[in-house]
């Protein structure tokens, strides 16, 4: 279960320093920042810019280009529902609507007790067993309404 650290500039600096000599270090750094803090904190951008010798604008452009990088930490657990064609063929639209209704959020939102962030994902590579979902890093296939309900219950627990 992901538990994130509060923002700490020294910790961020340490992460940035560890990757700085890698070729094309930005993505590895951003991933580790997000794994640590639950998001890419705004305050990390100037630190990264300085070390990588990039402008803040360039880095801002990079961070915002990618769907993965968050501005704020997600809920305690992240439930990703596949919305791509293969899952559509097996009724994922109805499952998505049900998840939104059960959690009281739209895709991309976090429920009120911040236990679950619900997200759309475009393909988990489990198209042989559609519809598919991922709860944190665990994958689920052949979903139906019952299995989805159980998954949402587990996520909220």
């Amino acid at each position, binding site marked *: 279960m992901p538990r994130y650290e509060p923002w700490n500039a020294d910790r961020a600096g340490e992460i940035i320093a560890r990757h700085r000599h890698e070729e094309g270090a930005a993505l590895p750094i951003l991933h580790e920042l997000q794994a640590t803090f639950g998001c890419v904190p705004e305050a990390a951008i100037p630190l990264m810019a300085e070390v990588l010798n990039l402008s803040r604008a360039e880095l801002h452009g990079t961070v915002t280009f990618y769907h993965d990088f968050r501005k704020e930490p997600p809920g305690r657990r992240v439930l990703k529902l596949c919305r791509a064609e293969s899952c559509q063929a097996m009724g994922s639209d109805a499952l998505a609507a049900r998840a939104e209704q059960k959690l009281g959020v739209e895709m991309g939102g976090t429920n009120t007790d911040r236990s679950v962030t619900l997200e759309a994902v475009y393909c988990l590579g*489990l*198209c042989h067993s559609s519809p598919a979902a991922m709860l944190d890093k665990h994958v689920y296939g*052949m979903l139906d309404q019952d299995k989805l309900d159980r998954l949402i219950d587990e996520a909220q627990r």
Partner: protein
Amino acid sequence: MSVRIYISRDSGALCVGAQEVAMQFFKLAEQKGLDIEIVRTGSRGMYWLEPLVEVARPEGRVGYGPVKPSDVEELIGAGMLDGKAHRLSLGLVEEIPFFKSQTRLTFKHCGIVDPRSLEDYKAHGGYKGLAKAIEIGPEATVEEVVNSGLRGRGGAGFPTGIKWRTVAATPPQQQKYIVCNADEGDSGTFADRMIMEGDPFVLIEGMTIAGIAVGASYGYVYIRSEYPDAVEAMEIAVRAARAGGMLGKNIAGSKYDYDMEVRMGAGAYVCGEETSLLESLEGKRGEVRAKPPLPAHVGLFGKPTVINNVLSLASVPIIMIDGAEFYKNFGMGRSRGTMPIQLAGNIKHGGLYETAFGITLRALVDEVGGGTRTGRPVRAVQVGGPLGAYFPRELFDTPFDYEAFTAADGLIGHGGIVVFDDTVDMAKQARFAMEFCAIESCGKCTPCRIGSTRGVELVDKIVAGENREANLVVLEDLCHTMKLGSLCALGGFTPYPVMSALTHFPEDFGAKKKRLEAAE
């Protein structure tokens, strides 16, 4: 002697409970004092049978599936460890028609070997392709791949060997790179994921051969972040290969150096486009580059770069072992060798089916795939991912071949087939194609960035009956502009699903059947 059983750790098996089944075997083995050894393999690709449990017997591996954790005790009681019959018995796994009728070249070891064990890979003939490449040298290796007729399995179908030859011809004494495109974002595809989770060493071997062939000493595998299991499997395999002297300095005792690392994407579909992927690897926005210059000349960090799909690179070892002639013997026309085809969506037998080019859509969907999982009639299939065309049943005689699909206004792409039954609304699918393009557009070129949003609006207007005839003309015109004016395949190919839906299923748009019009 302990009985060896095999349970997949591929995420396609995990998603239906393979981990829980394996845990149950561990638990019961301890309780009952059973002498069993559980090997966690990749998947055979018969996903409707997962979790599939295989027992090693003198006559071969005997399968049981799909197994639920609650079945395990009963299975053991019925004598599964001696290969005895049970209602979940599947007999010898390699005799199952879906498996037996395949030609497994790229996926030869997938589902058989332990993906975390270099020794197991070697014991199954692994790294013989590399040995051959070292023996015959770089030039002959490049020519072998050229002669095999292997074409890029990522979708574009560009001859792999020609890319290699171009990079090999660039001046030596400079850094060159091998980049593996493992950003498998197309819905309906999972073959790259299966290789990385089930037989990662074959990919590492293919990349190493590529490195030697073109004089590149370093490589990257760029894996999408939606594949955490594949990232883990590749990282473990890269470490094992390095520890075993198969990566790094003087690989396998030769004069060649080659090392590599795994990099993770960040949820951008467009990064599957090769130049966008290179930008992303450099740590930038994944914006598409204009070509030329080709990545072979000016690639990663401006250096000559071979960028190939997972399946292209994973096919290289078998080409080196059995020879270009052997590989070329499979297939039809200019599509040589085998294609790992992925059956997905509403299909009874979802999974991976590797076969020579030339098999028809009908054979794949109706016979191999067994029709829909819902039991309803098949109405449409989308081939080649979100940028691939929708095919109606009338076109099911189309053979799986790059040129035949182009002639039918479609593409085979990465080999995924998504099946839809008769409840599908094709106008909705066309709208989704435009919507997806709008979400994922990198924003660099106007036809894709703006056209996709206008496309969504147009489909909405057409379905709502607003100036339908006029808007249909505008939609066609927009598709034409996107197809010819976009920088890359995202904007350029989005018209395929849209136009094919409109052409083959006009009734879903409230439009008249064009074919009927022609007959009047």
